[in-house]
């Protein structure tokens, strides 16, 4: 079995279980809230119009955005109330998915109850049923097929949408899909998709069995279907056997380098006797907030990102000064600990093919400014709109013969086949080494420093900090590029865990 498949399958049971718990709970909450709402709405048009409108509105918000919204909302709520509300992971995922499950349940519930033959309701009143008896004995049983169809829709949607819960730090089958997509590890993507689809089909099938059981008055069908669902959820809820030791949660953003570094950190912590959990694919601002709130314990971020996004600074001091200022300010502001720089930068850099740069005698951006009027620039999709580009362009008076934006893959193709002379690269990108590119020095300091910095949550156990300190200054940029290339290249691809092991073999 290929290492990629083996790794994906090894992660599967835990992720499947987490996926089942979060989506199952969300559907149960959706039913618990949605059904009473449907009952009230079916009886009163004054309730019905706003309820259906609101549920429909929630549905128009993309699931990804809905999940992302609950993170800051819970954060603010936690600060306002002073309660320890976890803003990352299970809670925001559960709330967003429950809301998402609501619409089909409410809409079908209302349709089911309003669709019941009025003659039967008159008969129910005529034999002397109370409103509650009428609901229990007549309306719900007769509406059951339509109500159940709504629950089935909700279940399938929720299981699908739960793959996105990964982005707010809730483990799910989406972990495999997102990290697989980033590293172009299609085996991983396929395992994640297949597992999510199989889960959705299985749950839908069991609910269909319950539905047919109700329609045919076959109690074994109902019992088998419900029994299997309850058993699956119950099994998923049984806590994993506790293996003792403190759990350290490692965060990672959504690109290869972050997965590789998280794996390296994980290996260090395990070697020191800690248990670890991963929260991959965090959004850029979510990751820092999560660390500050203690939802994750450790992750790697970049100097320039923290400088502009967190401290909201626009100047570009030298790396040393920026690092010192960051260490001081982040600690004061959020209690976040800066363990140290890893030794490389992942900054925007302008790069050229080595042969071309040598032929033109270009080693710095000052050199480039002289040659630029004969050169073509290929940029990634956002660079030309970023402040870094304005700073570089203005400080060096760069004027290229032509400039175009490409998606990263095509940008590298353009420089490889000579249709571009200069590209905007990330300095730790593996393709810099693979294509034999050189990055041009920035003597006027127009580009901010993007030192990779190892950060830890407020109040992190000193033993954790000690076990990670060997990583500080240990990863030169050439080594990071090669590790990134192992994961990003098409042939002889390695998994991030394999690359992490190569990057930091340990002592």
């Amino acid at each position: 079995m290929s290492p990629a498949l083996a790794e994906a399958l090894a992660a599967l049971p835990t992720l499947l279980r987490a996926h089942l718990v979060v989506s199952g709970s969300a559907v149960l909450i959706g039913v618990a809230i949605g059904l009473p709402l449907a009952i009230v709405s079916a009886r009163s048009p004054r309730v019905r119009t706003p309820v259906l409108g609101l549920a429909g509105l929630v549905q128009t918000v993309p699931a990804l955005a809905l999940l992302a919204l609950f993170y800051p909302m819970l954060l603010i709520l936690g600060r306002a109330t002073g309660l320890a509300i976890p803003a990352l992971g299970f809670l925001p995922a559960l709330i967003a998915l429950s809301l998402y499950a609501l619409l089909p349940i409410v809409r079908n519930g209302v349709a089911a109850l309003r669709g019941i033959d009025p003659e039967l309701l008159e008969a129910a009143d005529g034999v002397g049923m109370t409103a509650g008896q009428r609901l229990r004995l007549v309306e719900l049983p007769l509406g059951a097929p339509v109500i159940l169809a709504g629950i089935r829709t909700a279940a399938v949607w929720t299981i699908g949408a739960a793959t996105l819960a990964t982005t707010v730090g809730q483990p799910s089958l989406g972990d495999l899909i997102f990290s697989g997509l980033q590293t172009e590890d299609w085996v991983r993507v396929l395992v994640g998709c297949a597992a999510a689809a199989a889960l959705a089909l299985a749950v839908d099938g069991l609910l269909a069995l319950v539905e047919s059981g109700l329609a045919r008055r076959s109690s074994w069908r109902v019992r088998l279907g419900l029994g299997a669902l309850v058993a699956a959820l119950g099994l998923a809820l049984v806590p994993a056997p506790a293996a003792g030791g403190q759990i350290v949660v490692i965060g990672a953003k959504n690109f290869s380098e972050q997965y590789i570094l998280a794996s390296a950190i994980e290996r260090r912590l395990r070697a020191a006797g800690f248990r670890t959990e991963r929260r991959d694919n965090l959004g850029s601002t979510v990751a820092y907030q999560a660390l500050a709130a203690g939802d994750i314990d450790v992750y790697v971020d970049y100097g320039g990102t923290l400088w502009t996004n967190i401290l909201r600074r626009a100047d570009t001091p030298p790396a040393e000064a920026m690092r010192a200022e960051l260490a001081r300010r982040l600690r004061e502001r959020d209690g976040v600990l800066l363990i140290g720089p890893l030794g490389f930068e992942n900054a925007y850099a302008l790069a050229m093919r080595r042969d071309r740069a040598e032929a033109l005698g270009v080693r710095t951006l000052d050199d480039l400014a002289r040659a630029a009027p004969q050169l073509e620039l290929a940029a990634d999709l956002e660079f030309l709109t970023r402040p870094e580009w304005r700073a570089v362009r203005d400080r060096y008076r760069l004027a290229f013969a032509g400039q175009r934006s490409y998606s990263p893959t095509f940008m590298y193709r353009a420089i490889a086949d000579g249709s571009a002379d200069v590209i905007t690269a990330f300095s730790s990108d593996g393709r810099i080494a693979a294509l034999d590119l050189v990055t041009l020095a920035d003597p006027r300091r127009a580009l901010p420093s993007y030192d990779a910095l190892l950060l830890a949550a407020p109040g992190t156990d000193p033993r954790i900090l000690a076990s990670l300190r060997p990583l500080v200054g240990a990863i030169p940029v050439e080594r990071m590029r090669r590790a990134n290339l192992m994961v990003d290249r098409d042939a002889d691809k390695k998994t991030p865990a394999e690359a992490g092991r190569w990057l930091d073999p340990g002592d």
Partner: protein
Amino acid sequence: MTMIQLIGVTRRHGGRPALDAVSLSVAPGEFVALVGPSGSGKTTLLKSVNRLVEPEEGEVLIDGRDVRDVPPHQLRRGIGYVFQSIGLFPHMNVAENIAIVSRLTGDSRPGRVAELLEMVALPTDFAGRMPRQLSGGQAQRVGVARALAAGARLMLMDEPFGALDPVTRDGLGRAYRDLHDRLGLTTLMVTHDIGEALLLADRVVVLIAGRIRADAAPAALVASDDPDVRAMVEVPRRQAARLAAL
């Protein structure tokens, strides 16, 4: 002694009175038919007795007690109610439909379903059938059995045989009349079929535009000199004469 007493009952539908200060007494054991053209207030009158319709003015008494003295669901459990579309619950079998009232009150009696099926002349093995497996006549027999199940002494029937074919309708009508006599029931039946009313009931009440126009035994009603009533009564008589002449 009266079973049902309506005193000055008024009910409006959008300003127009459906019932206009109607007063009516029904004695225990009586079989009273309510007839009249569509929209004359027959069904409204019937439903004001078991509070499916609440009058705006006036009083409805059963056994001398105001129907508003008890909660509607308790009132209805003691009154048999049969209507044209029958309203058998499609997700319950015949036995469950018949036993529904005893299920609500919690006093079920073994053998009661079989007894009721026999009463409405259905084989006892019908107990396990689903409503969709029954013919219209069979379904309405079950409807009658359900109305009788809780031991009701008073039956309210709204076009009970209206949807049945003529032969079934005739048979079921006569069978019900027998049951009425045998069990000593009091029956108030709405019908638009004046012939059926004249042949089954002890007393026929004619409602026109929310008011009682005539209230008499069938024989006396036939001799009425009210032109509207005469017009109604003439229909079945003329039909009978033409049929006899064939």
